[in-house]
């Protein structure tokens, strides 16, 4: 099951480049795209008030997130909203060079992550945008992308990375380039669930018994996509006390999948019949571990005991540079040794490979915001 990647560079790094520049963004982001142009027409002070207002609204939404009173949403939506807000900051805030912009984004980013520490997606998107700014700056300076990518261990050690002074140079085209790159990131975010579910048929075979826990939108899409071609049986652990599993089971059975709901206590007993465990997660940690809904650890241990493969469906934006997880209610940590495979929007990866993806997605200096 374990794949070896002998040539890490062959894996499409900068997968957001795989969408061509000519591609027009899809519908949900279109009203935001136009904002780039209207910034030039609006008077400056009003613009800034508008920006801070949006940031405040986003912060208070974050603080209320997940509760009955706040807007409830998936992490995919959260990632898109964060990125859209960061693009707005890039477009509307006052900055003259990359260093300024990075500082602004870092300051706001710190507030956003503090507002809801459990939502790692926000921090991840901030790191992605910071990385984009670094790259665009490097491109503007003329150093080619290729050389930047091939930062060897030796180079890292000797140069100590690009220091802040180096970002002080002004480039007229930088703003447009950064916004363009963030747009590409948004386009990539749009397609994550589709990219993951496209791989479903490679992993789910006919007459298999699949177990999952709770409700994950990604896993739901993944299973439903497989059900278009294959017949299989899904067992859903209800995930008490909130019992998100019930909702998941209803949704799956509506799609014509044979579904059984079990209590969390029955996980171990049923595991012997299961061919594969497919779960979602809240966060993928840098060491290849997970932070997922409570009960997942039980499931993972049971799967290990029965040597049942455990597959985690996690889009790339859930990849977080944290190694240890925070103490969070209703969330538990799962060690990487219990996980067989990660399926992300760019393909399948072993847990041991996560560190490499991490270095491609985020700049080491941005791990701590």
């Amino acid at each position, binding site marked *: 099951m374990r794949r070896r990647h002998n040539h890490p560079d062959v894996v499409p790094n900068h997968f957001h480049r795989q969408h061509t520049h000519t591609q027009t963004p899809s519908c949900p982001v279109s009203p*935001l795209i136009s904002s780039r142009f209207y910034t030039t027409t609006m008077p400056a002070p009003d613009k800034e008030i508008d920006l801070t207002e949006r*940031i405040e*609204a986003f912060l208070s939404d974050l603080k209320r*997130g997940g509760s009955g009173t706040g807007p409830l949403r998936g992490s995919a939506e959260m990632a898109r*909203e964060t990125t859209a807000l960061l693009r707005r900051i890039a477009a509307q805030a006052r900055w003259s060079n990359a260093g300024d912009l990075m500082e602004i984004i870092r300051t706001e980013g710190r507030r956003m992550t503090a507002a809801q520490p459990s939502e790692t997606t926000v921090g991840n998107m901030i790191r992605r945008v910071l990385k984009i700014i670094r790259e665009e700056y490097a491109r503007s300076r003329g150093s080619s992308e290729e050389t930047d990518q091939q930062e060897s261990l030796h180079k890292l050690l000797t140069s100590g990375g690009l220091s802040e002074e180096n970002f002080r140079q002004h480039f007229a085209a930088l703003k447009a380039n950064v916004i363009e790159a963030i747009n590409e990131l948004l386009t990539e975010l749009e397609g994550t669930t589709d990219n993951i579910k496209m791989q479903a048929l490679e992993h789910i075979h006919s007459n298999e018994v699949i177990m999952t826990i709770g409700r994950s939108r990604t896993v739901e899409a993944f299973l439903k996509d497989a059900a278009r071609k294959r017949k299989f049986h899904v067992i859903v652990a209800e995930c008490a006390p909130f019992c998100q599993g019930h909702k998941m089971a209803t949704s799956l059975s509506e799609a014509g999948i044979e579904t059984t709901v079990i209590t969390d206590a029955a996980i171990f007993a049923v595991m012997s019949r299961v061919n594969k465990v497919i779960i979602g997660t809240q966060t993928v940690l840098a060491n290849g571990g997970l932070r997922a809904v409570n009960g997942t650890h039980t499931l993972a241990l049971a799967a290990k005991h029965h040597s049942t493969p455990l597959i985690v469906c996690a889009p790339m934006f859930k990849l977080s540079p944290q190694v240890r997880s925070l*103490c969070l*209610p209703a969330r538990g940590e799962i060690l990487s040794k219990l996980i067989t495979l990660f399926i992300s929007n760019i393909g399948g990866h072993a847990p041991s490979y996560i560190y490499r993806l991490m270095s491609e997605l985020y700049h080491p200096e941005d791990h701590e915001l």
Partner: protein
Amino acid sequence: MAARGGKQSRSGAGLSGRKGADEQEEEEQPLQAVLVADSFNRRFFPVTKDQPRALLPLGNVAMIDYTLEFLTSTGVQETFVFCCWMASEIKEHLLSSKWCRQSSPNTVHIITSEQYRSLGDVLRDVDAKSLLRSDFVLIYGDVVSNIDISSALHAHRHRRKMDKNISVMTMIFKESSPGHKSRCEEDDVIVAMDSKSQRILHYQKTQGLKRLQFPMNIFHNGSDEFEIRHDLLDCHISICSPQVAELFTDNFDYQSRNDFVRGMLVNEEILGNQIHMHVTKDGYGVRVSNLLMYDSVSSDLVRRWVYPLTPEANFIDQKGLSCTYSRHNVYRGSGVSLGHGSQMEENVLIGSDTNIGANCYICNSVIGNNCTIGDNVTLDHAYIWNNVHIASNVMISQSLVCDKAEIKEWVKLNKQCVLAYNVVIGPNMSLPEGTVVSMHHPDEEEEEDDDEFMSDDAAVGHSKDKAKLKVFNPAEVGVGGRGYIWKASSLDDTEDEEISQCLWGLVLNPDPESESEDSEPEDPDDPVIPSPEMEDVKVFQLEVLGTLQRGLEENISFDNLVLEINSLKYAYNITLKEVMQILTRVVLEYPFQQQGPQLTPSQYVGLLLPLLKKWAPVFKNYVKRAQDHLDCLSAFEEHFLEQESHWAAMVKVLMNMYQLEILEEETILRWFSQGATTDKSRQLRKNQGLSPTQPLSDSEQIHDHDTHAIKG
């Protein structure tokens, strides 16, 4: 206002696209709220003498901030904060908070006046200033909630659209079993509702009563499904229509929401207004109405029941107040130092820059900012506010220690102690359970009893002068102590007694007390005007008695008496039958009430007969039909059943009533032959010396003799 509208449309189009179009077309008007930042009672006295209740810290955040956060998260865009007691402090707090920043989605208007003495005054002022344009949320400044009221709001609007503004209010209730910690026993209600329309038919505070009465007519209005529920917690959040303010203006005697609800339900058929309810199963919504509630809300907060309003969320967005969250609900602010061997067992919140010494044991407690705590201190259910100094070897259990208080060494605070601001206690002493210590002398209270809502700086200056004059009692507060003990026993007038009870909201003694309370107002010497919760019938009886008394003293003509009784009848919604019975009873009991219960039968008759003669026209006005006569007689019988020793007088009284043509012969005979249902009443009839076959005219002669005999 145009600016706000513009702002909303922008945010609708941009960031939060999902809020988008459908909400916008529904809400042409921004949602408004009325936040009453005054409790209009003195439950937290003497703590609230120095700081208004809305600003008291709960989990190191002022209570009003929880309320405002709740309102903002429900989408309220304009909040009117009404302050009275210490308005300037509330204003100052709000102006420096995030709610008054330009970026706040909720515009806060602060309206202060020293004239407000009740919720009614506030709403009348709202009406006078015509601040509200559409449905609004009515809430107190001490409500902690995370309930999603959007569905209730939607239902309220829908009802208003369908029923042409009949529904005036939707009250939010949370399901919670009786006796739950977050239920305030004083606020326990029993509600009869129509299951389909969620309409409230009957609303009554139980007040520890075991027997409850429901008017029958609530079950006769068409619907076939009713629910009578006692498992509801009143969240003190209500969605009101703009008419509510007008109704408060129209009914100038409404003081509280309770008055309003009762008034609406009683006059439902006349005014056509209905009150609905919304019951939520999840969420949290509790009003901090006394210290016991403060205790339970505080611990619920630390146990994260009010998520996302958790201590580490720092939702008020104040710099330096963020704290970290770790296992077993332990929260630590920045700069907290914990000595060697100190334990934080569970559910502990420690504010920033607080120093804790060695070998302390802390559990279920909240400690404010900048406190110093010595070694070997045990804190259990302790609520310690900011800048408190606690020396070594102190034990505190279930107590409240306010700002800048100091506790010296070897002090033990037993349960339910309160140390108000700046108090110093100790060393080497133990405060008994329920001790309240304040820098204000309890005597000051009596002097300024009337102006409890006077402006705060005047009160402070006044009290400082006083404090210097009086000496602290070392037996009460220790050798180095500063402060005065507030005790229930030291305060003689009833109001203060109530207060000292209320600080911790003493458990209402269930049955015996409440029943005796009910019978109390019958005492005619009691000048206390009965509370509106008291049964209307009893109030009516008292009023009739008063009317007749005045009639005698001032020689008021019987027409006016009748007029007055009639108006009382409508005021208390009393049926004609009850009027008759009460009137009879009042008249018959009148001699006892004037002269005391030790009257002999002959004295009694002597006193009563002239009265009967005087009031005969009043009786005649009410007692007309045969049924009326019977009702009158049954009241008559009831009275004499209670006064066994006066049975001798009964015949004479009855005779007299017959002679005055109050009662007819036929009905007296009918009553005599039918009425007896119990042994005692049978005995009564026998005792009267009448046999059912004997015609009344005979007895008339006998009684003529009797009266002659008395005269002779």
